[in-house]
Structures are given as structure tokens and as C-alpha cells.
């Protein structure tokens, strides 16, 4: 049992290390940051043009925020870790994962709109306090929720391994017909409850970029345009996360090729749960530390 576990873990690490070595991460990162900077400036000039009364600039703003959302998502962030991890460990189909990805980005945009709409307009709280609120409370809340999801994954993976070992012992006995846990026992994200938890953990914490677009557009009496721009920003982010989810599902499929039978598949799924769970916890705790 432990041998099998170690082999699967080592195999996954080898694939991961190879990916790390081949892809020029720093170059990609630098390019993404440069693009983000460009679109950030386009956003600024579009906002000024809207203030000056040019309503056409709303389209420029929305295209710029969509591009900004995409490139901003390329940086290491909370949404990706979770979406990537979930697509790797879960038993969800690509269509289901895509839906969850889009919903989580849109929900994140909605949080920004509700925050600015509620606090800025109704309670008259300034944008500095708003970003403080986001960073001091919402960001840690989001990381904690994400860490909790990691813990659930670990629990499910460990339970599955335990059940498999029980089954093995049982068949070593006499009865011959084992009541093995079905693969569904360890498949995550196939229930609505799981999906909602995942979407919520991402949506709790809005992007500061989105908050600023909303606050500035509110000051320029164009809050509605700001809302639209933040939704397109969310769509841009969703498109990137979509790529992450697709790679996750593809990787899961590749790893699954190594499984000879149903039991092998279950062992792999349980191991993926454990590995991804630990990764998610490590990353989210890392983000929480000062």
C-alpha cells in the first residue's frame, strides 16, 4: 500500500519538476506584468475620457479591463491554485469545471460591486478604508476558506486510502466479495455543496484593481460603466482560469492512463487528493503569513 502510494507521489513530482524546468516561468511572468501595465494605463485614459463625456470610451474601458483580468490572473493568485488543484483532484467533468470557473470569477466581480455599492455609496466609506477592509479581513478569510478546502481534500484522500486498506484486509480473509468504496467516494466537486464552497472561497476576496475601477468610475458619475467593466474584467480572469482548469483535467487524464484498473484509478485519485490538499494548504498558509 505504502509502496504504491510512494510510486504515485514520486511520479507526480517528476512530472511537476519536468514542467517547472521546461517552461520559462520568469519570462512569462515578466511579459504578463508588462502587458498588465499597458492595459492598466489604457484603463486610466479610458476612465478620464469617460469623465470628459466621451461615452464611446466605455467600450475601450471594458476591453482594457478584460485584458487586464486575463494578464493579472497570470500572476500567482488564490483562484488559480484552487481551480488548478480542484481540476486535478476532482472527479468533475470539464464542462462542470468551466461553469464553476466562470461563476467564481463573476461572483468575485459581484463582491467588488456589492462592496463599493454598499460601503462607498450608502455608508460613505472612503476607498482607502475599503482596500484596508479587503486586505485585512477579506483576503485572510479567503485564504482560510481555501486552506479548509485543502484540509477537506486531505481528509477525503486519507479516508479513501484507509478504506482501500480495509478492503484489502477483508479480502485477505475469507469472504471473497469485497464491498470496496466506489470511485465516487473520493471524487470531489461532483456535488453542489462542493461547488458552492469553492466559488465562495474565491469570491470572498475581490481584486483591488476591480475595487479601484469601481471607485474611480463612481467619482466620475459613471458607476454603471464601472460595473460593466468589472464584469468584463471577471470574464478575462475566467478565460485564464479556464486554461488552468483544462490543463488540470488533461493532467488528470494523463495520470489516469497509468492506472490499469478501477482500483489503480482509485489509488491515484486518493493520492491526488492528498497531494493537492497539502499544496493548497501550504500555499494559502504562506499567503496568510506576514
Amino acid at each position, binding site marked *: 500500500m505504502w509502496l504504491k502510494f510512494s510510486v504515485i507521489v514520486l511520479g507526480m513530482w517528476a512530472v511537476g519538476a519536468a514542467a517547472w524546468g521546461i517552461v520559462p516561468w520568469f519570462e512569462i511572468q515578466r511579459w504578463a506584468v508588462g502587458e498588465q501595465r499597458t492595459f492598466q494605463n489604457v484603463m486610466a485614459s479610458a476612465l478620464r475620457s469617460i469623465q470628459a463625456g466621451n461615452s464611446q470610451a466605455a467600450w475601450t474601458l471594458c476591453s482594457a479591463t478584460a485584458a487586464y483580468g486575463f494578464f493579472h490572473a497570470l500572476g500567482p*493568485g488564490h483562484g488559480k491554485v484552487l481551480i488548478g488543484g480542484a481540476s486535478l483532484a476532482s472527479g468533475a467533468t470539464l464542462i462542470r469545471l468551466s461553469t464553476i470557473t466562470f461563476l467564481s470569477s463573476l461572483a468575485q466581480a459581484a463582491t467588488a460591486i456589492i462592496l463599493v455599492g454598499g460601503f462607498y455609496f450608502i455608508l460613505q466609506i472612503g476607498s482607502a478604508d475599503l482596500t484596508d477592509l479587503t*486586505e485585512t479581513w477579506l483576503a485572510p478569510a479567503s485564504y482560510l476558506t481555501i486552506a479548509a478546502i485543502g484540509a477537506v481534500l486531505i481528509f477525503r484522500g486519507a479516508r479513501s486510502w484507509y478504506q482501500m486498506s480495509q478492503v484489502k484486509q477483508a479480502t485477505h480473509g475469507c469472504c471473497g466479495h469485497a464491498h470496496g468504496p466506489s470511485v465516487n467516494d473520493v471524487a470531489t466537486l461532483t456535488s453542489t455543496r462542493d461547488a458552492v464552497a469553492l466559488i465562495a472561497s474565491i469570491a470572498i476576496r475581490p481584486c*483591488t484593481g476591480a475595487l479601484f475601477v469601481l471607485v474611480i468610475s463612481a467619482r466620475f458619475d459613471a458607476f454603471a460603466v464601472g460595473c460593466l467593466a468589472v464584469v468584463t474584467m471577471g470574464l478575462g480572469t475566467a478565460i485564464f482560469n479556464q486554461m488552468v482548469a483544462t490543463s488540470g483535467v488533461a493532467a488528470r487524464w494523463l495520470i489516469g492512463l497509468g492506472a490499469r484498473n478501477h482500483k489503480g484509478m482509485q489509488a491515484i485519485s486518493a493520492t491526488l487528493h492528498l497531494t493537492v490538499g497539502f499544496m493548497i494548504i501550504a500555499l494559502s498558509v504562506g499567503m496568510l503569513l506576514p
Partner: protein
Amino acid sequence: MLSAMCLGGVTKAHPHVFVDARTGFVFGSDRQLEAIKIAWLYDEFTTLVLFETLELDLDQDGQLNDSDRIKILEGETNWPQNYKGDIYLEVLGQDYPLGRPKAASVKLDANQIEVTFDLPLSKPTEVDSSPIFLRLYDPFFYFAYTIVSVEASPDLPEDCEAQIVHFDPTAAEIVLQDKLAALGREDRPEIENVGRLFSDEVQLTCG
């Protein structure tokens, strides 16, 4: 920007603020390095954010007036105790202590706010052929700095040379990998030293 964004500085690895920095060196009559000159030019979006968060330009004439300037400089140069301005000076391989901003000014140029100030060294120091490094970076990468120029100040001694070395991702990656490979089991990565690998730097040598 500080008061507006940095206090909630737990955000990591997502640059939101882009700064083009101009740098310079101030020498005393005894050829000792006394201070560093810094100018931070904020990107257009950050400038809009500053206008909003600090409630600048309330008369909406598109210009900064005296009260606007006071508000900006308060946030930009009255640093909290634990903030060092994302400015790091390395002398003989050691982090060299710096003072607090002096002679600060601010202007608005082509929709971008620029803050300028001098940062004195805690104690003037000799510069010889072993290079002194000036680096600007935010360990959390919320602020992304690019050093765009090092200005030749009139008091720079003739035999001194200052040049910008831009961040090279490939080299940084190799150094980082070597560092990680060199770590023993009980060692912990020295996070504070990793940030500088990803920054532009100015090298100053004399003689």
C-alpha cells in the same frame, strides 16, 4: 500611495502599482557618498487612484494645489517605522542603513504623479572600486519598480561611475536555483534576499 495601499500590504505577487524610478547620488566635498536621490513616477491608473483616495483636486481644475501637495507628500514621505521606502543600499555586501526622506517635492506631469526626494545615508561612506548597489523593490511585489535612469549629478567625482543593471530573468532564475540547491536540510530559504534577485539595480564604483 503608502497610506492608501501599502498599509494593507498583505497582497503578494500581484503588482498593482508601477513605478518608473529615477535615481542619483549626492557626494560631499570630501568625496563621501552622503545621500541618494529618488524620483518615483507613478503609472496613470495609480495616479487616478491617488486622486480618489486622497481626495485631490477638489476644485477640478486638473492641477495640484498646495493642499494637494501636502496630502501627497504626507503619505509618500512620512514613512511608518517599519517601512524603508523599498530602497536598499548594499555596501560591502551588507544592507546599509538609510535615513528618512528630505527635500521632497511632487508634480503632476502628463497625468502621472511624480514624487522626488533625497534619502540621506545614516553616515556618509567612502566609495572605492568595490561596487555599491542601489536596489528598489517591494518584497511583496505589490509595487513594481523599474529604474529608468541614473542621473549624473554635478558633484559625482570624476573617477566614479554609476550604471543601471536591469533585471535579467534568466540569470535570476539560475541564481535562485543555485541558492535553493545549496540549502541544507535544516536551512531555511532567506526570503529577504530573494527579492533583490528580481530587481533592477544601480552599480556605483569609484577609482
